């Protein structure tokens, strides 16, 4: 095992940190409603892991072997990289959703100069 084994995990971790930075800067998800974000994240990751499990049971997903993987498996066919990826995917989805909601809301507020503010999505 050498540094190359952690390239994939490192890239995912780096991306995840990027999501946290965006979240902190613009107060999008965890930095806006921590408990709610935590609940969404836990359910989201559990949902995708269940999907993975179903795919693995039915022989649809197979874990490819790559020099850039750590080789750490959380369950048969389930590498640790997958869990980090799913966390990143959920975080990215929610950052995008809340960020775009805010942009849409600002635009709507500008379009009605009386400044009617709708609830933030």
């Amino acid at each position, binding site marked *: 095992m050498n540094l190359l084994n952690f390239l994939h995990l490192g890239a995912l971790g780096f991306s995840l940190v990027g999501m946290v930075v965006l979240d902190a800067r613009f107060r999008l998800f965890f930095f806006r409603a921590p408990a709610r974000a935590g609940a*969404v994240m836990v359910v989201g990751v559990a*949902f995708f892991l269940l999907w993975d499990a179903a795919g693995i049971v*039915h*022989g*649809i997903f197979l874990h490819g072997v790559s020099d850039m993987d750590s080789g750490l498996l959380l369950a048969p066919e389930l590498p640790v990289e997958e869990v980090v990826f799913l966390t990143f995917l959920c975080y*990215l*989805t929610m950052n995008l*959703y809340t960020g775009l909601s805010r942009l849409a809301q600002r635009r709507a507020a500008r379009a009605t100069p009386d400044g009617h503010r709708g609830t933030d999505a």
Partner: protein
Amino acid sequence: MTYGALILVFCTLALLPWALLPAATSGPERLRGRTAVVMLTTLIVLCVLTVVFDSLIISAGFVEYGAGALSGIRLWHAPVEDLSYVLAGVLLLPGLWRGLEDPRRARDHLAMLVSTSRPVSWVNTAYPFAAAYLLTEHRVDDLLVVGTIFFLIPYNLLMYGINDVFDHESDLLNPRKGGLEGALVDPSRHRGILVASVVCPVPFVLYLLFSGDVVDAVTLAVSLFAVVAYSVKGLRFKEKPGLDSATSATHFVSPMIYGLVLADATWTWSTVAVTLAFFVWGMASQAFGAVQDVRADRAAGLGSIATVVGSRRTVWAALCGYLAAGLLLLTSAWPGPLAAFLVLPYVVNLVPFLRIDDDSCETANRGWKRFLWINYVVGFAVTMLLIYSAWD
């Protein structure tokens, strides 16, 4: 099961927050339209990112797919099926985020749905399925887990959610509803209950349909038809004397038959006798349950086996049903005949009501409450017998 079928199952599962949490879909129309646009934009951005990075990851050999699982359509290197992940994410996560905005409202609504689904009855439908499947298949697999969860909650939510909404007029006249035996719901919540009742079972039914053959599908369809036809407007089998008892019995027996069919059981006389005994027991129990409502049902203009033949004759018919179930069990293979003795508590439970008349029909409620508890004791005894028979 193909990747496409799995995608359909999980994308419908991702819709559940929208069906179960009222805050997800509430708000002025203008804002809901904006949410849809934002979700669509999020989806497009994520799809572009997926095609680019999925292609890179697949080129690097991180992910492989089983032979024949994919449609073969690729966007650059990314299989088109992989876009379903972001689709499900965009459906699921914002739905949860919006739905949980007011935690108390979400909790209240979920508590109401749970009470609508009659937690006291969950085990009555999940257990027959799980026992039948497990004793035939002799192993725990995905179908056992999915089927048991389905018959535990979504199946009961579908049955009682439709029931409560379409029963509203008669329930208003019935002081018994609102506790252990039935939930009384405010008409303003009817839409939410109907949506949850109908959407919640969909992913489970799809999973079971994709995993089984045609016979399995027909069996499940009959079971679901009985659930809906019991109380839905236009069919209302619960108001057709005789059909009411048979449909109600189907609710509890069809999960067992489905478990046997799904596990490809061989139909010996013994299996048929046990199934018939369970069915007759279910008819007898439903008939007895209708006795306590005779006056309320008549006042509301509703029909049941008990309003047509009268309270006392219904109790006697139930008694005959229990005895017939016992006789059927005597003809089954060992240790089935032992289970014949388990009809005795039900027979004894009816004895105080053999001279009941329509004016005192409400007193049967005491017997109905005892019936609910007898079920747990007898259920335990049946479990012991099943374990004993599996030992051989």
